[in-house]
């Protein structure tokens, strides 16, 4: 039986009927067509599905959509607030070449956002620890770490 829920995604409320076994990842991608958030391992290891729920980075593949009812959800589509100008994290990822195939990028950026919201001037070790739940199989970690470090600098300006 479907349950009616309201999800606040990137500032917009969406009321929809979902089956209780659907994950937030499925509802974001399949019902709201927000396909920036990826699905990787389904186990909470790879981080490709990372979104923010009430200001905390979580695995959307391990979250039931019904449990996100009434919460503030931020996906990579909402990272650039105006929808025109990119977020400093996105700018830095482009500038530092921190994207190869791109599959991990949305999750990496959401983890970077959670890190930088809690630590405005992270050291390299803090960044690496902050990305411990995100895998990049192109192994572009160095450039990702550089990008986040550079994003921290521009956000502090």
């Amino acid at each position, binding site marked *: 039986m479907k349950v009616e829920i309201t999800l606040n995604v990137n500032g917009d409320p969406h009321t929809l009927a979902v089956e209780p076994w659907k994950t937030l990842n499925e509802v974001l991608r399949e019902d709201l067509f927000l396909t920036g958030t990826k699905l990787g391992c*389904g*186990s909470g290891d790879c981080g490709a599905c*990372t979104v923010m729920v009430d200001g905390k980075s979580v*695995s959307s593949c391990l979250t039931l959509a019904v449990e996100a009812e009434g919460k503030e959800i931020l996906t990579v589509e909402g990272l650039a607030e105006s929808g025109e100008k990119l977020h400093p994290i996105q700018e830095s990822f482009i500038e530092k070449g921190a994207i190869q195939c791109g599959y991990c990028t949305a999750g990496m950026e959401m983890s970077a956002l959670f890190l930088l919201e809690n630590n405005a001037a992270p050291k390299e070790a803090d960044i690496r620890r902050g990305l411990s739940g995100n895998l990049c199989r192109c192994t572009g970690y160095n450039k990702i770490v550089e990008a986040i470090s550079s994003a921290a600098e521009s956000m502090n300006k």
Partner: protein
Amino acid sequence: MSRAKFEYYAPGTVEEASRLLLDAGKGAFLLAGGTDLLVKINHEMIHPKAVVSLNAIKELDFIKFERNKGLTIGAGARLADVEIHPDIRRRYPAVAYAASVTANTQIRNMGTVSGNLCNAAPSAENAPTLIAMNAEVALYGKDGERRLPLEEFFKGPGLTALEPGEILTSVFVPLPPAGSGVSYQHISARGKVDISAVCVGAMVSLDKSGCEDVRIALGAVAPVPMRALKAERVLKGKKPAEDLVEKAAEQAMKEARPISDMRASAAYRKTMVRVLTRRALTEALKPARKKIG
């Protein structure tokens, strides 16, 4: 078979959750952080008929420190909350540390200490420290609440003392003795993120004459997190000199009964029990010595 389609309940009280769990019977599962449950559902390792969420139960979402009693961690408290809680960091640093090295950031934002215990993996990252510190769990069921020492809670891999309809509502950690120190040590093949191949928690309490009490708990080297009782006896009542610490570590190695699996061989695990027990005891002794001066 495809992924389970289940009924979902989000009761507002523990009483109601327990009743729902009992009524739904065998195919009912409790949901807290979901970081173990959803993995098993996604990969079709389990096919729940009903999922009872604890997340609407406000009374479970707490961390309480009482100066004259100790620490109580509610079943709703996230690992990330335990990791940064000021009283836990100050008075139970090893508990905060164990939470902080559990899995990764996203999992810590979602998962709970109680869930880590109820999942009952032999490697449960938060178990050894809590067992070493004499933690107790509060279990709520149809006959009311009962309390159990944490070390009696684990019955086998994935198995606990929970009766049908029973819910772990909180973990209580008594105040550590005056001259005590606690340490948690763990090791895994791939850095710090992976599930531990071996983990060790130790609490040492000193008085003027030597080790007044020692508790050593080993993880991932037996079907359940286990006390190394003979290793504890090596030190108990004696001055904790370096060679005696080494002897206790060796004894812990003998007591461990690990298996070989994808994370490590039994032989490697045995050796690491010695190394990590020695480290845990050495680290626990540092603050203990400082306190008794």
